[in-house]
């Protein structure tokens, strides 16, 4: 059983397009996250949601908009894609109130390439 799943695994698109990445967790966790990992492997948190409520919103361009239809899903929509958005995006989830105290479970990642 996949605990945290993401789709798609690979996404290749042109500059200026709008795309979405979906994430689902079946662990019953209250909190979900989006991370961006660049080519140097730096992994940086972008957003955190707790029970569909935004908890953490790092300095991310407003072209990035997370959406949480329910606590098991956290999707990431990106408008007007730019070359610098190319990276691997990871979804994660954890138990708890939304602050990052607990073990996080990561999805397999979505490799986004903007041409």
């Amino acid at each position: 059983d996949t605990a945290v799943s993401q789709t798609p695994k690979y996404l290749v698109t042109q500059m200026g397009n709008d795309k979405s990445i979906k994430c689902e967790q079946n662990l019953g966790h209250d909190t979900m996250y989006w991370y961006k990992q660049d080519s140097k492997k730096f992994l940086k948190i972008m957003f955190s949601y707790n029970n569909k409520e935004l908890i953490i919103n790092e300095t991310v361009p407003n072209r990035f908009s997370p959406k949480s239809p329910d606590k098991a899903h956290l999707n990431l929509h990106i408008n007007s894609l730019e070359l610098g958005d190319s990276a691997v995006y990871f979804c994660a989830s954890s138990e708890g109130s939304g602050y990052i105290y607990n073990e996080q479970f990561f999805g397999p990642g979505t490799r986004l390439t903007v041409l």
Partner: protein
Amino acid sequence: SQQGEEDPQALSIQEGENATMNCSYKTSINNLQWYRQNSGRGLVHLILIRSNEREKHSGRLRVTLDTSKKSSSLLITASRAADTASYFCAAIPPGGSRLTFGEGTQLTVNP
């Protein structure tokens, strides 16, 4: 911002040897976590050590924490080729939030 910084950046050893990776952070913490990332995969949680703990074991893994030096180390004993991966630490501040991983230590275990 709170950050874990791993050292060394890369480590290459032979199977059966021990591997030690270090992590330094800047401010007080609630806990510190170590993760492993195999190539092309997501991160997998290895171990969590709380600020009031000094050492923790899990199988072949041993983690130490020195809050006075703001540092932690991860020791993998009797390494295997399957341990080849990147290892990241993440230091969690008391209030949570603004978690940033370092760029990790790339461990290569040669058969």
